């Protein structure tokens, strides 16, 4: 961050940094590849509606460390499937708040934006990634439906693209993401992503704020409505806690109580 930036909440799960006309929101759990917890998404939701963020003219959403976000913290979900319901519900709130936000939002998805981390991108106005980044929704193999992300995806890409991305549980490269509309700008290197996103946000910050806000408002009205988001959330929540979902998530940790094996997140 530049010398002129003001950082708030060093130890927070999502850091807010004010940098000139920009507000940078950084997922801040780098040792867990920014795996999302309910508290983290709630903090992000609060920040998206906070006066100190809304007084900025453009927002950058990024992640500290090696990747943007590896998805929900599956260790929490494994311990208690109610965490999954909470994560899905707050995720919907975050995506809707990003869409409703009058300021333009640029997401810097370097390295990986997987599952819940990929779903967050669907709230952004511009998505920057890198060639080798991994994106997608590898969650149906865990008995989890990515339905929750569909209304957001339909605002970014063709319906067929959204179908492909949510039914095929494979991950795609940043280059493929840019081809299909899941991302807009593809950098050669992961370290170029946050600087590029920041430059794009600075460019957007120079536009008249009222025109940008009016345009975002119109696009939000033309896109998926509240009913669509609620229907999608219900479709995903409907499977939480089923025998199939519990067994598939439990299989991530083959040893009972095994503390050292298994991923922290879907990636």
């Amino acid at each position: 961050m530049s010398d002129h930036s003001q950082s708030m909440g060093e130890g927070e799960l999502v850091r807010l940094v004010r940098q000139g006309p920009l507000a940078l929101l950084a997922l801040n759990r780098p040792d867990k590849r920014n795996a999302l917890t309910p508290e983290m998404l709630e903090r992000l939701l609060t920040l998206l509606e906070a006066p100190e963020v809304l007084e900025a003219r453009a927002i950058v959403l990024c992640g500290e460390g090696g990747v943007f976000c590896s998805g929900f913290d599956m260790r929490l979900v494994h311990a208690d499937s109610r965490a999954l319901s909470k994560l899905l519900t707050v995720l919907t709130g975050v995506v809707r708040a990003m869409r409703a936000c009058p300021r333009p939002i640029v997401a810097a998805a370097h390295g990986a934006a997987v599952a819940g981390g990929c779903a967050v991108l669907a709230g952004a106005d511009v998505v920057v990634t890198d060639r080798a980044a991994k994106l997608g929704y590898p969650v149906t193999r865990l008995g989890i439906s990515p339905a929750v992300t569909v209304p957001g995806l339909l605002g970014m890409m063709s319906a067929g693209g959204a179908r492909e991305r949510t039914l095929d549980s494979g991950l795609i490269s940043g280059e493929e993401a840019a081809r299909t509309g899941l991302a807009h700008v593809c950098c050669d290197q992961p370290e170029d992503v946050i600087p590029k996103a920041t430059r794009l946000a600075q460019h957007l910050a120079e536009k008249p704020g009222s025109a940008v806000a009016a345009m975002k408002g119109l696009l939000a009205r033309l896109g998926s409505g509240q009913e669509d988001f609620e229907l999608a959330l219900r479709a995903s929540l409907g499977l939480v806690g089923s025998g199939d979902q519990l067994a598939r998530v439990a299989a991530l940790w083959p040893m009972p109580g095994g503390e050292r094996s298994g991923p922290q997140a879907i990636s």
Partner: protein
Amino acid sequence: MSLATLSIDGPLARLTINRPEQRNALSLELLTALHVRVDELTAMTTPSPERTSAGPHVLALTGAGKAFCAGMDLKAVLGSAERSRRLLVLLAELTYKLRRLPMVVVAVVNGPAIGGGCGLVTVCDLQLTFTDNKMGFPEVDMGVCPAVVAPWLVRRIGPGRARQVLLSGGLMSGAEAHRLGMVTECVPTITDLAPAAEALLAQLVAGSADALRATKGLLNTLDGSEDWNTLEDAAKLSADVLNTPETQAMLTKKLGA
């Protein structure tokens, strides 16, 4: 030998369009045979007290021989307004039923997929093909209106690109179809197709049937796939255009009927 063959292996079903001597062109008989198979698949996944299995949750659709599907068999319906209308209604109903199957439907596009054949590709959830395959919608070149496939293509690649593809006619390569978003994956050569298809099918089979079905159901609800009226109107429009004297004369000349 049936015009449409179906095999079931636990969670995986395979449906093959089986009229290779006519490049799998969609005749009234072939469309009827495909309906029978899709109805069987629907029955297998309809809850019933007698059945313990929830039926397959993945379907692979492919063509026997060297073509996937050469399109509508218009020669057989030439001169009969009633038969051509019936052909288009059967196609519309088939696309609607395929889309509503509670399984992930994968088109393994093993050869040319033209017109209505390319429409069948478009209605599937996922598609694989190879670089120098031939695909597309040459309907307008023959005075035919690809109305039935239009709603599905708009959903697949978005309205702007669909407009370009449907109004331009002609054919495109598999690589171009991939660039436009009409297919999920494009492998270098035809010999790479089967291994890539089997890898994708294995991944889908390993996925949760409940999660895939819930996701597909939601996608169908949100993207308008459950709207039958538009398809019904489209079949009527396409039949009306097909039965104009201009189109009938053009087809008679082209098809040598």
